[in-house]
């Protein structure tokens, strides 16, 4: 299972992957990372000489969508190459073995590659009630995570659940779900959020890590290379936003003409992801291109950030109702205060003593 000591280049050659294929892979990966195309040869040269890393993939409270995203949504082509670049030694869904044997492999990798392997996590970790809501082989997710992460070189949190808690953490968060970063504090963590994340972004992050080491992260722990721009910034419908042309409903003229979906609740302006450039389903399209506003799935708490179909800058409460009640209350309070003032003024009028020239002081 393990190809101890082999470089990625050696592995690729062994598997009959030509140098041109590899160059092509590097060129497209650099393109996804928005790196200058001239970096492709550098990536190629570095990867060639890099030792093929061992990877443990842990799945916790998740829907397997992230793994599906990576393995199934694209046919086994360029993205598949990542499985040649890495040695995926443990992954529930993909590995052939099961039960004690599978767990044994995990322990073996930890022992053999202590401090060198990459830990990929998808799914959030339940902490409530001692973490009983998700256990594997009698261990809680938290225990497995802590035990494994302690020996990892770095952790990659794939998917919004692992990165920020995601849907399990959504209100009312029945399992007390938390993100990887909430538990692991002493290892570098790269968040690759998205529900699911874009497949090529997952592979891109791994390539980036292998080539350049720990990537530059934004304040939410995401690699800037992939999450550096908002959907809005890169959206092909942006010109309509700038011109003030908006679809008002899903089937009006504006929608048919492909106008901006901001009014339909698009979270593009506050969502950082590569959807608008990388797109989905073999580069076919992305939600906005299909006519649906961005849900903001790569952002923390996206499930609870108000309605998917309400613009993100609008108040969530019933403002008109509150305004009417407030005005009513103001009317009553104002009448009371006004009455006090009125009484005071009337008292002043009553106190008025008719003024005569004797009340003026000395004249000249």
């Amino acid at each position, binding site marked *: 299972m393990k190809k101890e000591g082999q470089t990625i280049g050696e592995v690729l050659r062994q598997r009959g992957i030509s140098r041109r294929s590899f160059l092509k892979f590097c060129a497209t990966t650099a393109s996804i990372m928005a790196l200058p195309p001239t970096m492709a040869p550098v990536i190629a040269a570095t990867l060639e000489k890099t030792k093929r890393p061992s990877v443990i993939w842990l799945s916790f409270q998740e829907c397997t969508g992230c793994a599906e995203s990576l393995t199934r949504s694209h046919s086994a082509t360029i993205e598949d190459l990542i499985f040649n670049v890495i040695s995926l030694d443990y992954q529930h869904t993909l590995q052939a073995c099961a039960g004690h044997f599978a767990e044994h492999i995990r322990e073996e990798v930890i022992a053999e590659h202590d401090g060198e392997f990459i830990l990929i996590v998808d799914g959030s970790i339940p902490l409530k009630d001692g973490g009983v809501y998700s256990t594997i082989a009698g261990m809680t997710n938290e225990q497995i995570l802590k035990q494994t992460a302690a020996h990892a070189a770095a952790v990659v949190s794939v998917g919004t659940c692992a990165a920020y808690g995601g849907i399990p953490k959504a209100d009312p968060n029945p399992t007390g779900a938390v993100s990887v970063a909430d538990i692991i504090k002493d290892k570098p963590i790269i968040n690759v959020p998205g529900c699911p994340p874009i497949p090529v972004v997952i592979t891109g992050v791994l390539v980036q890590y292998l080539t350049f080491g720990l990537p530059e992260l934004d304040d939410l722990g995401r690699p800037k290379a992939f999450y550096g721009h*908002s959907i809005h910034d890169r959206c092909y419908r942006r010109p309509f936003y700038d011109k003030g042309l908006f679809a008002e409903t899903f089937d009006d003229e504006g929608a048919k003409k492909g106008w901006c979906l901001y009014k339909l609740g698009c979270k593009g302006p506050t969502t950082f992801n590569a959807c608008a450039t990388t797109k989905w389903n073999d580069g076919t399209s992305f939600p906005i291109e299909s006519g649906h506003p961005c849900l903001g799935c790569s952002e923390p708490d996206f499930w609870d950030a*108000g309605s998917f179909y309400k*613009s993100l800058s*609008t108040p969530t*409460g019933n*403002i008109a109702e509150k305004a009417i009640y407030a005005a009513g209350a*103001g009317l009553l309070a104002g009448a009371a*205060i006004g009455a006090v*003032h*009125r009484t005071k003024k009337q008292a002043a009028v009553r106190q008025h003593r008719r003024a005569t020239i004797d009340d003026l002081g000395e004249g000249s």
Partner: protein
Amino acid sequence: MTDVELLLWVRGPAFDIATVILCAGMVIRFMEIFMLGRKANLAEARGSEMAGGLGTVFRRTLVDTGTFKRTPFTVVAGWLFHIGLFVIIFLFVPHILVFEGATGLSWPGLPSNIVDAFAVITIVTLLAILIHRWRDPVLRLLSEFNDYLVWLVTFTPVLTGWLAFHRVGAAPAALIAVHILSVELLMVLFPFTKLSHAFTLWVARWYNGAIAGYKGVKS
């Protein structure tokens, strides 16, 4: 508190609170004004109070040429930032959505790059106005804490809004949250400061015009 939690709070409870304070406060202000009453005028009228009042409500938006020549900065800067605020508040699409959400009324907005230009003009004008307030002897004499506070709470939403639009300085959710928060501060302070002139000035102008109109004078 994460950015999104903050954003949800400012869009939810905080906006409710600000709305309640703004509405109740302004109604109280108006009640305080109107309940002081006004004596009926016993002199024989030469003109109409209503016509004079309404006329001045509109006419006073413009200034006579002589005064304009004497105080061009105040007039031009005042116009610029008021128009700027109007465009920003009422013609920027995300803002129209707020009004639509509250009232159900909607109207077409302007392209965002035009609103952006107005925002820049407004920001520059407001800064110039602040400097003018410091330097002009009359304004220095008149100005009190209230004036600077009002300037600040007017300037902040424009600046934070502009930053949020360009997504400069922080995460967009945080920028929007801070922007909405600054608007809420404006709303909360509205009834208690001279910001309330936005509502009371129509009453003031009407009274001015009515007093003059009764005597047959256009004021």
